[in-house]
């Protein structure tokens, strides 16, 4: 025992595995973000047309386009535009939108909030339901319930998000029932929390596409745990079924499930674009589509960086959580 405590102290000096993981991943994350910003910037330069042309429309004369190009600073070299943007980022100077000269933050902030609420609400609901259903299916392995849920999950997985969204609208808004609005028209300045009714159908669509992933992963992980020798041992000892599941099987099925939850949130962050389109939901996806149409580089850059940062943070968080759930790996050797 004494010897072991000694090893432990030395390990702390070397840095706790979790701390070193977080530090390492953060470093990698920052490099990733830089690369992403560079790639996106390069991509915006390759898009045909520029902001001046997009703003003035096709009926503009060359003189007007030239004047606006000067005004927007588009004549500067791309590296100068990029550096201007990058150097402002750490101090929170995000620049102004080319499309309507508003500060980028003022344009993006409400959309960011709306999308965050949508992702969190649908992600959490989807994960809770997915985990519960997955565990139940694993317990009833081979039963009619298990089989039908598994087939159902496969079927839903095969359908793209926006098709699910349209189905939800047909069912709950336009054709069958008229329960909730099929478009999420928010008054500018109002956020989605102030109008929760508008959140229902977009969130429901995303929940429906989220559940199958979480369900399948939880079911597989739980099945694996249930078939392991220690569960067999516990069963032979006479531990009741539910205790076997909750105390023995689920904790071991947790790390892969956490990974899947993390992945789910990442998928949602990308999947909201089409769902937002269907519901005309004033979120970040719609903001990005608008910004690309307008060649509004500062807005594109910020939204993409915000999304990339979300990816990095979720990845680090899931790794840390997964580590915390596996005692063997979180204690230094």
């Amino acid at each position, binding site marked *: 025992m004494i010897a072991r405590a000694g090893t432990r102290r030395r390990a702390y000096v070397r840095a706790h595995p979790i701390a070193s993981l977080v530090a390492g991943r953060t470093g990698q994350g920052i490099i990733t973000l830089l690369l992403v910003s560079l790639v996106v910037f390069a991509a915006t330069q390759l898009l045909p047309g520029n902001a001046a042309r997009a703003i003035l429309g096709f009926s503009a004369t060359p003189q007007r386009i030239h004047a606006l190009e000067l005004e927007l600073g588009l004549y500067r070299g791309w590296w100068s535009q990029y550096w201007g943007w990058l150097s402002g980022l750490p101090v929170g100077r995000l620049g102004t939108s080319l499309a309507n000269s508003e500060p980028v933050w003022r344009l993006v902030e409400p959309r960011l909030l709306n999308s965050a609420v949508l992702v969190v609400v649908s992600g959490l609901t989807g994960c809770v339901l997915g985990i519960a259903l997955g565990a139940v299916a694993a317990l009833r392995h081979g039963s009619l319930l298990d089989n039908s849920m598994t087939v159902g999950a496969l079927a839903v997985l095969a359908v793209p998000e926006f098709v699910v969204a349209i189905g939800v609208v047909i069912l709950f808004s336009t*054709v069958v029932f008229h329960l909730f609005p099929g478009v999420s028209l928010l008054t500018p*300045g109002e956020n989605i929390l102030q109008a929760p009714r508008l959140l229902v159908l977009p969130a429901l669509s995303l929940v429906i596409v989220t559940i199958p992933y979480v369900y399948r992963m939880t079911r597989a992980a739980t099945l694996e745990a249930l078939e392991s020798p220690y569960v067999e041992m516990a069963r032979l000892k006479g531990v009741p079924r539910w205790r076997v599941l909750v105390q023995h099987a689920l904790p071991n099925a947790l790390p892969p499930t956490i990974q899947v939850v993390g992945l789910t949130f990442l998928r949602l962050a990308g999947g909201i674009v089409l769902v937002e389109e269907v519901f005309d939901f004033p979120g970040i996806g719609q903001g990005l589509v608008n910004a690309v149409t307008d060649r509004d580089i500062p807005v594109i850059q910020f939204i993409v960086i915000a999304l990339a940062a979300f990816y990095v943070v979720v990845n680090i968080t899931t790794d840390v959580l997964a580590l915390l759930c596996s005692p063997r790996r979180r204690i230094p050797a």
Partner: protein
Amino acid sequence: MTEREFELSRRDLLRYAAQGAAFLGAGGLVATGSRRTTRSSAAAAMSPRIKRGGTLQAGLSGGSSSDTLDPQNWVNLVDGARVYSLFNPLVDFDLGAHPVLSLADELEASRDAMKWTIRVKPDVEFHNGKTLSADDVLFSFQRIVNPKSPALGAISLKALDIAHAKKLDKYTIQIPCFTPFSPLADILASYDFFVVPVGFDLKKPIGTGPFKYESFTAGQQSTFVKNENYWESGLPYIDKLVISDFPDEVSQVNGLNGGTLDVIDLLSADSIAPVRSGGNNVIITKGGGYTPFTMRVDQPPFDDVRVRQAFRLICDRDAMLRTVFSGYGKIGNDVFGLWDAVYDTKLPQRVQDIEQAKSLLAKAGHSHLAVTLVTSAIGSGTVQVAQVLKQQAAAAGVTVNLKEVTSSEFFGPNYLSWTFAQDYWNYYPYFSNVLQGTLAGAPFNECHTNNAAYKSLYKQAVATLDGHKRAEIAHEMQQMEYSGTASGYIIPYFNPVIDGYGSRVHGVVSSKTGLPLGAYGFKSMWLA
């Protein structure tokens, strides 16, 4: 379209027309020549069954973060909806797409068409309570032609010497012309000539329109409230107008059928059935806008008029319209200005004639012609109709290679230089369209037509105030377009406009200009 969905609007129209006549009879308008009543003073006398109040939710197609409320520089059609709600032009189009006086009370040219006198209505108030005066009209013209940042309409006004325009009295201005210019009413009605007050500030947009500015977020939504002192008495009926941008047609239809939206616009023929089955109404307009094929007359093979004629004969226009718009819309005859009184309806309708096309091509030495058509989703149905043309051309032994580009590339540096491409045109009265499109030196002369005889006819036409003579000259010019000598256009059809509105919405009409929802006539809509 079926009888049902036009029943209501036809009835409304008849009623408005009757009321408008009564209004005219009471001496409400002083108009020059045969100008008709404005489309909305028609609704001035109120029918007792019209209900006032309420908020109208409009979900309109298009828009982006660069949306603007600048009435003289608006770009997309959602901008148009907002601009038509907040502002008025001096001259507007009536529902039949004929220019009628709006803020102007009088628009009169000197005998030699070298001087125009414009008098505005005396009792019009801006949203801030200021009375509309000659100063505002002068300011509006100056803002359009401002050499530092000329507005969209500046090109069309280049015959006018705005710098030497002067105020005659409180309501009247006089503008001299550089060269005789008679079709001013046509120009002023053409979408870009709204009146703003002296010192106009885009951040607080003040106009004379039926609705007052309350809030606006580009790319998303605007809220306007009723202008209690609107000059067309009795209008508008609704208290509040909310216009939201919709990038996607499916969500527009969902919003209407789900009850969130009251009116939606610019639908494809595919949406007609879902809107109807949702218990809502569809209104289909034969608009005057068109999406022509453009052949450059200064480049081979289209520099040979026989090739241009052959391509026009290759088109089965009925089949094109059926494929693209399920047959709604109107067949074209390669001449624009469809609703203008000077449009020559006597020109024989051109129909497909493959044999004739083949023989013309053979005579031109192009029996096995291959051309590249640059197409892009720049207007509804442009890419589909290009595909149809490709198939129809094959029958005449012509290979049409399609090069599909993004709309940004289409309108990029090569715009107006493509050898064989397409374009989108709103409805313009005939001479207004000539001035912008087919005249040598016109800003959108995409076919590079440069016909001296045609230009000299145009000059004669705009120099005369005699409507009869002008029509004669116009017919002569249209003959040259029809034969292909002064035109590189194929106009297979004029696009229909398909809008939808909820069952509780009344007073939705259609405008032959092709601007949706009766040229955004929210002022005459009411909610049951």
